[in-house]
């Protein structure tokens, strides 16, 4: 503490008292840096300004005073700040500036009286007066730094100090190391100041320290920067924002691009194209420019570039204006701290869609589009950056199998957009052919279905375009493989059917990309046979997968199927009243269908509920020279307990006839699970009167309650027909094998 000297205290009446009053009505107390110096201040009021003795200030504050008597000048030095004035003069020299005070420095009884407000301000003192309490407070400490913030946006970055009072500050820049020193005068640091960490390209680190009543902030920098301090009142407090910007110090053109160099990397930019004349305005945010520059380029795309400091408040923007030739677009890239401006003048000249499978984008030079396949709406969107659309039509109606429409637009100043509406979204491949971009809409496998039919499974493969394919079997494990050539599959776009029964697993894969080949592999429960139903080149591959023994041997066979009874002859009557003639007709028709699917020619003795003579039934078979005759009946007995299946042949049967009977009987027993009553020979009229192998199958007993209810179930009748089909097919297979 400086030693105390009691002096007279003067007080100015700031609000109402206008007249100069040499003598005070009341005493005034003076406090310096919180200490009471005197309660009877010696003061004068001149022109509303209060003057107090200079010695009170020099004695109580760290001020060095020199009196140059020859020139009647007093020099004060407060922590390096030099102030000069003369008694009887209104002017103050602060460092090298002259400040005019409200009133003169006077001398009363050899005591120098100085205007407190003006000199105090020049000395960096805080002076507050409290008229009611009649106190004047002089303080070297102006305020307290309460908070430090590190704001960083694309517009600016820096350090912000929250100080309770308005303060003076000095800034000095140093190199080696590059640093910025900020002296905040009369500001102390709050005891628990939070120092935010910086994540900056400009600031390495910073340190803050307090010396006496001043605070020093040392900001270590990576390189030279431009700074700008913005003061803002925030309630009763003040915010000092020290904004830092890289300095643009070079502009070059290397023949293909403009390179803007700066002390630190440049980032955020805004690009705006103007026409008449064609220009592009590039605003480089948070950058300072060393000096406004103009660079003549004069090539086919850019004429010249001008750089200027567009604004400094509220934050720095450097503006580059490029005079463009034609429809040039520019692309900005940050490269090694430099901002590079690449002129691009790509033009979308046309689209060739004459080929159904590919599109050709004709461009003035190669520019890679961004492609968005959109599942919703089945479309492909091509965005060509820095590309000017020169296609006049907005919509090109295509309407081929794959492409419905092509829409072209200048999406924005830089981007041309082409939307290709497809009938179905497909994979694509892109390839440059000179400056033309070929987009191949790759043929793909769009659907895999597996239909289970009575005796086979049918695999169907849908393609967008007809293709060649190969089908073959592999063993260990048993597989059926279908290779589809020149085809791509997008596994995300297809749903595979569930494997079932004889097919254990279905897999689809892009077997190879080059050449494009899709492989569909079916894992089979056993060695199965297949039959290709589709053409060699097709967009719908269809393959029947059949168990070897179900492979049809019926091609060109003539089979007479005879539904027993009919019309006035109902045949047996069931336990609950069902009629043999109706049920056997249904089985016969089902069998007809199966046999015809298998390639056989079928003649039915009846298709309706009509009475046909037994001899007429045989006659049909004989006249048509049928290969076999199959008569379908249901059995009956007086005792309803009897059940089972039996097959009749004529007594003078030959071996083939017996074979037919045995195979159908066996198939029925296996297929229906009924009791095997065997193959029997008997003089049944239809068997005795036919000339070819003939059988009469008694499927089950209608007189039996359980079997009747089975027979009344369509599924059972279907099974019966399938069993007969299998038996008959097997018969022709064995004959064929024997013959070969």
């Amino acid at each position, binding site marked *: 503490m400086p030693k105390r000297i009691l002096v007279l205290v003067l007080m100015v009446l700031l609000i109402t008292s206008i007249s100069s009053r040499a003598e005070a009505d009341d005493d005034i107390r003076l406090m310096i840096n919180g200490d009471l110096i005197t309660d009877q201040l010696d003061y004068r009021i001149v022109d509303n300004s209060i003057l107090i003795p200079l010695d009170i200030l020099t004695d109580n504050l760290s001020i060095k005073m020199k009196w140059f008597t020859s020139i009647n000048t007093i020099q004060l030095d407060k922590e390096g700040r030099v102030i000069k004035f003369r008694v009887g003069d209104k002017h103050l020299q602060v460092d090298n500036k002259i400040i005019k005070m409200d009133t003169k420095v006077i001398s009363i009884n050899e005591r120098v009286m100085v205007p407190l407000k003006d000199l105090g301000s020049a000395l960096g003192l805080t002076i507050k007066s409290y008229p009611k309490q009649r106190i004047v407070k002089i303080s070297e400490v102006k305020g307290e730094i309460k908070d430090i913030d590190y704001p960083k946006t694309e517009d600016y970055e820096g350090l912000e100090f929250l100080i309770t009072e308005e303060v003076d500050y000095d800034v000095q820049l140093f190199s080696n190391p590059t640093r910025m020193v900020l002296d905040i005068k009369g500001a102390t640091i709050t005891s628990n100041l939070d120092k935010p960490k910086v994540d900056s390209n400009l600031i390495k680190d910073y340190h803050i320290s307090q010396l006496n009543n001043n605070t020093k902030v040392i900001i270590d920098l990576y390189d030279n920067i431009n700074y700008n301090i913005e003061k803002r009142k925030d309630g009763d407090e003040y915010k000092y924002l020290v904004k830092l910007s890289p300095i643009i110090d070079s502009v070059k053109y290397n023949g293909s691009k403009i390179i803007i160099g700066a002390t630190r990397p440049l980032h955020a930019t805004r690009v705006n194209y103007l026409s008449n004349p064609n220009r592009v305005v590039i605003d480089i945010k948070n950058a300072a420019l060393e000096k406004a520059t103009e660079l003549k380029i004069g090539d086919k795309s850019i004429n010249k570039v001008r750089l200027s400091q567009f604004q400094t408040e509220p934050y720095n923007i450097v503006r580059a204006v490029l005079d463009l030739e034609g429809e040039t677009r520019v692309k900005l890239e940050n490269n090694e701290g430099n901002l590079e401006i690449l002129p691009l003048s790509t033009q979308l000249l046309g689209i060739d869609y004459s080929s159904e499978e590919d599109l050709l984008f004709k461009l003035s030079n190669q520019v890679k589009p961004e492609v968005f396949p959109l599942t919703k709406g089945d479309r492909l969107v091509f965005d060509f950056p820095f590309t000017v659309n020169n296609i006049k039509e907005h919509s090109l109606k295509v309407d081929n199998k794959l492409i419905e429409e092509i829409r072209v637009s200048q999406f924005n100043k830089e981007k041309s957009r082409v939307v290709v509406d497809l009938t179905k979204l497909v994979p694509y491949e892109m390839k440059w052919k000179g400056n033309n971009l070929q987009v191949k809409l790759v043929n793909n496998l769009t659907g895999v279905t597996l239909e289970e039919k009575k005796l086979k499974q049918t695999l169907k493969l849908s393609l967008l375009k007809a293709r060649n394919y190969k089908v073959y079997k592999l063993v260990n494990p048993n597989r059926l493989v279908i290779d589809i050539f020149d085809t791509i599959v997008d596994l995300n776009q297809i749903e595979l059917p569930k494997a079932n029964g004889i097919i254990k697993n279905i897999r689809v894969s892009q077997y190879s990309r080059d050449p494009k080949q899709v492989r569909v592999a079916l894992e089979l429960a056993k060695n199965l046979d297949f039959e290709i139903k589709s053409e060699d080149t097709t967009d719908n591959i269809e393959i029947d997968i059949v168990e070897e023994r179900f492979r049809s041997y019926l091609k060109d066979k003539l089979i007479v199927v005879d539904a027993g*009874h009919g019309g006035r002859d109902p045949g047996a009557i069931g336990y609950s009243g069902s009629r043999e003639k109706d049920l056997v007709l249904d089985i016969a028709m089902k069998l007809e269908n199966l046999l015809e699917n298998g390639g056989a020619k079928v003649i039915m003795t009846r298709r309706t509920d009509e009475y046909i003579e037994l001899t007429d039934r045989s006659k049909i078979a004989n006249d048509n020279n049928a290969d076999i005759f199959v008569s379908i009946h249901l059995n009956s*007995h007086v*005792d309803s307990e009897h059940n089972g299946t039996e097959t009749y042949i004529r007594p003078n049967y030959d071996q083939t006839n017996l074979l037919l009977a045995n195979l159908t009987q066996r198939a029925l027993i296996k297929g229906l699970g009924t009791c095997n009553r065997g193959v029997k020979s008997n003089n049944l*009229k239809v068997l005795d009167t036919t000339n070819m192998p003939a059988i009469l199958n*008694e499927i089950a007993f209608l007189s039996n309650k359980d079997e009747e209810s089975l027979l009344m179930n369509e599924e059972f009748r279907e099974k019966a027909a399938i069993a007969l089909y299998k038996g008959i097919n097997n018969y022709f297979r064995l004959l064929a094998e024997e013959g070969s």
Partner: protein
Amino acid sequence: MLKEKNLNLYIVVGLCILVVFLLSNFFTTKEVKLYFSDEQAQYLTAEIREVKTNDLYENIVKELIEGPKNEGLEVTIPAQTKLLGIEVKDRTAIVDFSKEIQTKHWGGSTGETITVYSIVNTLTALDGIDRVQILVEGTKVQTLVGHLELEEPLTFNSNLIN
């Protein structure tokens, strides 16, 4: 007169002898095999029965219509069926049934076979009959209920005998 008396005596004696003969014939029986359906309706099984020898064939067929006594065997001919006549000519039995053998029949190849061969096998098992021709209401039928040929006389079917 005396001669007349003797003649009358001869007639009486002759009649007595005839009556005795006829009565003896009426009361005598013969052991025959009647073929009925077995329990599985797969085969025909013979039931041995004493049948009165007067109108032997007619009696046999009537016994067949009545059905088996043995619990393990089953009926083969609809019960409402009546035998309209039976005669044997050239070792062929011609058996004429009422229409119920068709109209009341249960149908089925098995049912029909059992019916027909129950009759055919039973009759052809007898001495003097080799074949059986079934008639319905006096006429030949193609089949009984649509399966088995009946136009020609049938012979014993050993396939049906277990």
